[in-house]
């Protein structure tokens, strides 16, 4: 199957899916949601130079293309130039994303994989290359357009952003730059109060005579 034919097929499927709202099947992780296209996935529409690079050994919960997608999203979503913020390459962002995805049930996880493939490949229609190969500004503009687009576009943009944002900011190394205190109870030496004492018997018990 050539790319053009496949592109038409995907576009037709996508429009049909939106018209029927069949693509909506969700299981959210963290905050935004997990996209799902109602039927199976599709092959990539255009090869990327990244396709020849395998994901690291630890990324066994992600496909190679998912790994590259989240790593590219990390780069474009978390710019730190000119700020005190920690560079995202010093934070295990994609590893944290993988951990979050590991909690999804298998059906939802499969659906998400299809949605991620859609996000990556849809850029071929507008830019002639996959999302992972877009320049930084074009990739950010792609996110913005999808955030203002159809339901499935908004959903996928939100899902990827939330997964990446959460994966970065949950890491304690990112906190000092913004004065976030993180866990404090032990640091402050707060004493454990334990269980509350047993309450007094209510007045109604005396009339019933049923207090233990």
């Amino acid at each position, binding site marked *: 199957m050539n790319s053009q034919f496949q592109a038409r097929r995907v576009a037709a499927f996508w429009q049909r899916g939106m018209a029927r709202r069949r693509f*909506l*099947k*969700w*299981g*959210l*992780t*963290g*905050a*935004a*949601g*997990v*996209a799902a296209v109602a039927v199976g996935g599709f092959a990539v529409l255009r090869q990327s130079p990244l396709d020849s690079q395998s994901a690291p050994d630890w990324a066994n919960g992600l496909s190679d293309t998912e790994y590259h997608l989240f790593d590219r999203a990390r780069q474009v*979503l*978390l*710019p*730190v130039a000119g*700020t005190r*913020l920690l560079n995202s390459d010093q934070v295990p962002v994609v590893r944290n994303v993988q951990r*979050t995805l590991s*909690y999804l*049930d298998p*059906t939802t996880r499969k659906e998400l994989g299809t949605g991620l493939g859609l996000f990556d490949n849809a850029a071929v229609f507008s830019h002639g290359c996959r999302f992972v190969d877009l320049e930084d500004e074009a990739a*950010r*503009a792609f*996110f913005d357009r999808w*955030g*203002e687009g159809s*339901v499935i576009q*908004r*959903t996928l*943009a*939100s*899902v990827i952003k939330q997964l990446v*944002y*959460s994966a970065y*900011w*949950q890491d304690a190394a*990112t906190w000092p*730059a*913004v004065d*976030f*205190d*993180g*866990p*404090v*109870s*032990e640091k*402050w030496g*707060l004493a*454990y*109060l*334990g*269980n*509350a004492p*047993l*309450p007094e018997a*209510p007045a*109604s018990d005396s009339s019933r005579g*049923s207090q*233990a």
Partner: protein
Amino acid sequence: MSEVKWQASGLNVHQASDVTQDRLNLDADVVIVGSGAGGAVSAYELARRGLNVVVLEAGPYVPSEQFTERFTDSLETLYQDHGGQTNSSGDLLVLQGACVGGSTVVNGCVCFRTPDFILQDWQRDFGLSELTEGELAPYFDEVEKNLAVHDNGEHEIARHGQIIRAGARQLGWSVKPLKRNIRQCGLTGHCLSGCKSERKQSMLVTYLPWAAAYGARIYSDTRVDRIVTEGGRAAGVEATITRHDGSVAASMTVTAPRVIVAAGAVQTPVLLLKSGLANRSGMVGKNFACHPSLYVPARYPQPVHPWRGAMLGVYVDEFLHPDKGGFVLEDGGAGLVELTMAAEPGTGEPFMDYMANAKYLAGLVTLIHDHNVGRIEWDGERKKIDYQLSDVDFPSMQRALKAAARLHLASGAQEVYVPASDRRIIRSEADIDPLVNSLANQPQHLRMVSYHPQGTCRMGADPDNSVVAANGETHDVPGLYVTDASLLPTSIIVNPQITVYALATRIARLMA
């Protein structure tokens, strides 16, 4: 009656890791499904009257000292579906606790009595003539006393609350300190991750240990698969005990003439549907409401540090009554991960600028009086929360959002971030109407969260349009009771934990 054995700390819970046989058969007077607000209160009330009580909790037992005060960890360990429970379209995160103690472990401690105008609706529309303000007042009094409910003191109103309160006063809006169930608040701001030092008076440190003191047996990691009946009466449950690695540790049967389902407004109807019980009215799972809320952050010129101090300090009740809008605004603290979820300030540098200046943010939580338009379904494999904000409720959401923006601006905010999927930043009063009016009631346009699912086994006098009678017993199955927020016939606008405690107390005493 055996000796009362109150423990000063901790809780004796039978966990999957304790199981040494592949089948357990228990007998009890009452078996309770769920250990949250409704289950724990029921357990205590019945155990202290000498009944043999077994409590089954699907989630794990996580002692307070294991709370990490890291929100992502907490979502994974303490929340339903590891924090991933949503409606079908994924634009509404439905956060419920899924651990021993249930949602009371991870809530924000906010306590409201059921508004009287809501009770009047229930009396008028559902024949619940017994549930008057006067009837419920002694129950409210008692649970509030038991749980150290009090108005926030001044030290419990964090910087973000002080700012919001000043703005509300400038607008002439009624603003009050929230009531919370907490002793000697540690002001950590980590309520949603569980209270590590056991100051929040959740079920984990109150009614559950009290129930255990009177002999109630508590099992964690134990999911009830089916309610068993004999001759049309409740007769017990069948359950599965599952290890944390997902493997089955044992099957369990509890034989009991009375079954209380208190698994929360999502799981309770799922269990009834799986069991094929109590659904003559066809109302099991229907009438789902959830107080869909928005967290509206805004940037201020001075540092706020929204993660510091008590998480919830004050609320604006100016619009509480449906005639005035039917919504509540609560000032709300937040940590970094929560702040990433709230707003869409733009991709890349705008977002990182928003987060780099997170200490200048303060937030408002909106709660609306939504209609009971959703339903919980079970397809044989997975539950489904079929809920979209209705077109009737969308204007309420917009009004609440506008009021939040107005309040932020009056409080001195420079930028208010509309919690939508696209970039909308309000910088002046003139921005409010165009940016809010142009929102569409479509899936994935607003970033909504629900902490208050309710209504899916509603109470009522008429067996043809309700599931449970005013005494908590299902119309169809003698001996089968419900004591959680599934009962509520309508949404109640305000945080429902005190309502559930009071109703559960009343129902348990009527049972005893």
